[in-house]
């Protein structure tokens, strides 16, 4: 019998792994408002994660930390080596290629934010602070949210997240989750063209999404990770059209509210309170639809629109 670690989960926050191999590395971080503890049998993935988030590392795990665990195992039949990514005691992914571990660790964390970070109203959006105002780009997957955020950060915007607009229901302020920006292969050249040295960054594999690279926000700008507390001042529902002339048009606040509801991760949990919250958000924001094309021209258009 192949040595198969026995996993006993005693509670959501206390995943105890017995019998795992010696050398499992552990580290804790606070990525904005999201505390994370990682434990990994794979040293490469561990180091890569620590490199991305070393400035956010903690001495001790924070309370309510999301517990991400990478286990090196073997397939029961083929005995082929694989890596399982667990989060809070639940197996989320099993991958065969070591280059897939890091993206799936990130994916697991995002998944658990959706499930277990109920304090914030969550919109699927990239989020920035520009001139003291929050700017969010809600969009479906593959709409260029991360690429646009990277381009904006290069131009001086301060980074909050490329995946979640986390809105505090009490203050209506945006909370930061400044994860490394996850850039898909189709956007490598666009960012290269704006001066980002993409070729110096390792390539990872993110399932059907293909090759990705992670960019630390401070790789784009030294002031990227010091956003000021801000409310949402501008909402831009973005969609990418290759070769399109960048265009922005105003939309009504009622339209914006409905679109925000569609892009919300936890609308079901907030229900009428969420509708009230989003109404407050759109009342104090300018709302637009953004068609993005060339990255540089799109970012310039956004900056002109928000009055930066």
């Amino acid at each position: 019998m192949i040595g198969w670690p026995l996993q006993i989960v005693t509670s959501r926050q206390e995943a105890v792994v017995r019998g795992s191999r010696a050398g499992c590395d552990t580290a804790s971080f606070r990525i904005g408002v999201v505390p994370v503890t990682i434990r990994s049998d794979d040293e490469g993935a561990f180091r890569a994660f620590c490199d991305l988030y070393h400035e956010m590392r903690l001495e001790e795990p924070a309370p309510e930390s999301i517990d991400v665990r990478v286990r090196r195992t073997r397939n029961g039949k083929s005995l082929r080596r694989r890596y399982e990514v667990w989060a809070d005691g639940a197996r989320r992914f099993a991958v065969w290629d070591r280059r897939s571990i890091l993206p799936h660790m990130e994916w697991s964390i995002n998944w658990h934010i959706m499930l277990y970070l109920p304090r914030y109203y969550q919109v699927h959006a990239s989020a920035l602070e520009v001139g003291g105002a929050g700017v969010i780009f809600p969009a479906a997957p593959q709409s260029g949210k991360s690429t646009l955020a990277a381009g904006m950060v290069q131009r001086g915007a301060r980074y909050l997240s490329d995946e979640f607009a986390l809105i505090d229901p009490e203050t209506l302020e945006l909370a930061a989750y400044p994860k490394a920006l996850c850039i898909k292969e189709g956007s490598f050249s666009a960012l290269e063209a704006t001066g980002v040295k993409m070729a110096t960054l390792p390539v990872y594999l993110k399932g059907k999404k293909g090759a990705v690279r992670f960019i630390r926000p401070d790789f784009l700008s030294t002031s990227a990770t010091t956003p000021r507390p801000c409310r949402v001042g501008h909402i831009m529902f973005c969609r990418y059209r290759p070769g399109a002339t960048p265009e922005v048009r105003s939309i009504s606040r009622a339209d914006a509210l409905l679109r925000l509801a569609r892009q919300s991760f936890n609308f079901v949990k907030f229900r009428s309170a969420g509708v009230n919250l989003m109404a407050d958000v759109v009342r104090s924001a300018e709302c637009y639809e953004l068609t993005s094309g060339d990255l540089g021209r799109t970012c310039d258009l956004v900056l002109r629109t928000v009055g930066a």
Partner: protein
Amino acid sequence: MNGTCVSPRPLDATSTPTPMRRRDVVLHELDGEAVVYDEAINTTYRLNGTAYFIWHACDGLTDAGAVARSLAERYDVPVEAVSEDVAKTLAGLLENGLLVAGKNE
């Protein structure tokens, strides 16, 4: 058996001549439009300015003709120009459960 068992009947403009807007929904008026949230079925609706006017006019005592007249007056157009649109909008609002039977029905 006590009480009366009533089969639910689908609401339409014929069976509901004086429909009434539901009060148990979340309503936000935004720049003349409205967003209505029906928590019972977790569904959100956007009403443009005209649809909101029509929905708001449905107080359970007013019939479609009166709604059309007040809309025509607001936009200063002949009532014939809006009657058909009012009927369609009322049908849509009834179909989506945002209107219920009126006070005298």
